[in-house]
C-alpha cells in the first residue's frame, strides 16, 4: 500500500489533568474510509480537534502530505484540504443555505471571487440534494438538512480528507440510509474519509478499517468484522464484568 497521506505519531492532548488523547499513532491512506469508534468521552472529537487545529497538541506530531502540520490553525487545515463536520452542527444561521456553502468554497476551496464560489456551491447543493433549499435560511433546515449542509460546506472546500463527527446522530433510519449513500458517493470521488460513528450498522457497511479509541488510547485497529468480536473492544463498550460474563458464556456454550 502507498504511504499514508495523514500520519499521527504519539499525539497527546490533555486538558489540565484530563488525558483526552494519549499517544495515538495512526495513518490514513488515500481513498480509504476509516471508522473511529469508542465509547462516550473516549476522545474521538478531541482527536479530530487536534488534527484540525481547534486544539493544539500537548505532544506528538502530525504530518499531512509530508508536511508537519502539528498545531496548525483551523483555517490552515481547511485550506490544506482537511475538512471536518461538527458533532453539533455549526451553520451560519442567518445566511442562506447557498451562502453557507459558498463560504466553504470561497475561503476553503480557494475560489478567486464570490461568483465562482457561488457556482461551486450550487454544484455541491445539487450533489447533496439541497438545491431546493438554496435560498432558505440555514436555521430553517431540519436536523437532517443541517447535517447535509455541513457535508455540502465541507465538500465545497475541495478536501482531501473529510472527517465526519457523528453525521448520523439524531437521524431516523431512512435519513441514515440517505446519508450512507451520500458518504459512499463522496468516497467514490477519491476523498479519504474518517468517520466517527456510534452506529455499528454504519461502521460495518462503510468502513474499510476501524480504529477503536478508549480512554484516549487506541486499543484496537483492523478489519470491521474482526473488531466487533475483539474482546478488548467489547470490554471497552460494555464494561469489564459484562465482557467476562460474555466470554464465559461463549466458552461454555
Amino acid at each position, binding site marked *: 500500500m502507498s504511504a499514508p497521506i495523514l500520519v499521527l505519531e504519539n499525539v497527546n492532548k490533555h486538558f489540565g489533568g484530563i488525558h483526552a488523547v494519549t499517544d495515538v499513532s495512526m495513518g490514513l491512506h488515500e481513498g480509504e474510509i476509516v471508522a473511529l469508534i469508542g465509547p462516550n468521552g473516549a476522545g474521538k472529537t478531541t482527536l479530530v480537534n487536534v488534527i484540525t487545529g*481547534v486544539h493544539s497538541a500537548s505532544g506528538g506530531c502530525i504530518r499531512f502530505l509530508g508536511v508537519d502540520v502539528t498545531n496548525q490553525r483551523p483555517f490552515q487545515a481547511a485550506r490544506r484540504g482537511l475538512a471536518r463536520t461538527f458533532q453539533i452542527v455549526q451553520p451560519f444561521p442567518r445566511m442562506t443555505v447557498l451562502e453557507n456553502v459558498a463560504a466553504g468554497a470561497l475561503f476553503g476551496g480557494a475560489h478567486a471571487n464570490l461568483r465562482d464560489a457561488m457556482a461551486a456551491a450550487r454544484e455541491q447543493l445539487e450533489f447533496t440534494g439541497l438545491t431546493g433549499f438554496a435560498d432558505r435560511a440555514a436555521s430553517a433546515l431540519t436536523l437532517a438538512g443541517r447535517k447535509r449542509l455541513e457535508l455540502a460546506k465541507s465538500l465545497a472546500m475541495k478536501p482531501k480528507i473529510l472527517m465526519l463527527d457523528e453525521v448520523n446522530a439524531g437521524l431516523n433510519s431512512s435519513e441514515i440510509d440517505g446519508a450512507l449513500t451520500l458518504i459512499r458517493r463522496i468516497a467514490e470521488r477519491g476523498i479519504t474519509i474518517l468517520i466517527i460513528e456510534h452506529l455499528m450498522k454504519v461502521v460495518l457497511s462503510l468502513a474499510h478499517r476501524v480504529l477503536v479509541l478508549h480512554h484516549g488510547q487506541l486499543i484496537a485497529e483492523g478489519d470491521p468484522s474482526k473488531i466487533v468480536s475483539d474482546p478488548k473492544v467489547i470490554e471497552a463498550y460494555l464494561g469489564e464484568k459484562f465482557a467476562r460474563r460474555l466470554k464465559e458464556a461463549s466458552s461454555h456454550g
Partner: protein
Amino acid sequence: MTQRLRYIIFAAWVMVLASTPLWAENYTVRLAIIVAMYTALSQSWNFIGGFTGYPSFSTAAFFGLGCYAGALTQNAGLPVILAWVFATLFVGLFAALLGGIILRLRGHYFAIGSFGIVEVVRLVISSWGDLTGGGDGLNVALVTGSPNVVAQTFLAVMIAIMLIVFAVTVVVDRSRLGFGLRCIQQNEDAADMVGVNTTRYKVYAYTMSAMFCGTVGAAYASWTGYIDPSDSFSIIMTVKVPVMCLLGGVGTVFGPVVGAAAFLLLEEFFWTRFLEYNRAILGAVIVILIFFLPGGLLGIRYRELFARARARLSQPGAAT
C-alpha cells in the same frame, strides 16, 4: 425598499447636509457638521460591531487619540491635511497592534476590554502633561477666516470623511473581506473551520473601525481649536456611536447613516423641548427602539406594517 432607492435617498440626504449654509443659520450648519461627524464614526463602528459582531466600546479612544495626534502634529508645524492623514495612520496602527491582543477576547469580555482602553488612553494622555497639556487641554492653531467660512470648511471636511467611510463600507460589503466578517459574526468557530483567517480579518475590521475615528478626531480638533481629555475621551460618545448603529441597522451599508441621523435629530428635538429631562427621555426612547426594533429602522418591513394597518382600518367597514 430597493437598494437603488436607498442610494438615491442617501444622495439626497448628503445634499441636504451640504446645502445647510445656503438656507439655514449657523446653528443648523453646526448640527449638520455633527451629523456628518457621527455618521462617519457610526459607519466606522459598523466594521467591527456590525459586520464582525464584536461589541466594541473603543470609539472614544480612537477619536481622542486622533484629536491629540492631529493637534500635536499640527502644532508642530505639519500642514493641516497632513496632520489629519497622520492621525488616521497613527490611530490605525495603534488599533492594529492593539487588535492582535484584545480580539482574543470574545463577547462581554471584549466589550469590557474595549471599554477599558478608553480609560487607559485617557489616563496616559492626561498624565503626560509635558506633551499634551494634561488636564488643562491643548490649543490648536485655528483655521483662519470668518466663522461662516470656518463652518462651511468643516462641513465640507466632515461630509468628505463620511463619504470616504461610506465608500469603504460599500466596497467591504461586497468583497471577500465582508463575507468573511459576516461569517465570523454568525459563527466564529465555523468561519475558522471553513478557511477564514479569523484573526487577520478581525484585526482588519478593528483597524478600519479605528482609523477613520482618528481622522474625525483630528478634524474635530482643528475645528474647535481646543481639546482636553474629558471632551476627547467621552464615555457618552463611546456609547452613543454603537447605539446609533443599532438604531439604524447593524451590519448594513445604510444603517449607520440612518441611525446617526435619527438619533441626532431625536436628541435635538428633546434637547430643545425638555431641557432638564432630555437625557432620561432619550435613554427611554433608545431602549424602546432597540427592544422593539432588533433589526433597526432599516429592518422594519414597512410594507407589511402598512398592509396590516390598512387591514385593521378596513375591518370595521367590512363588519357592517
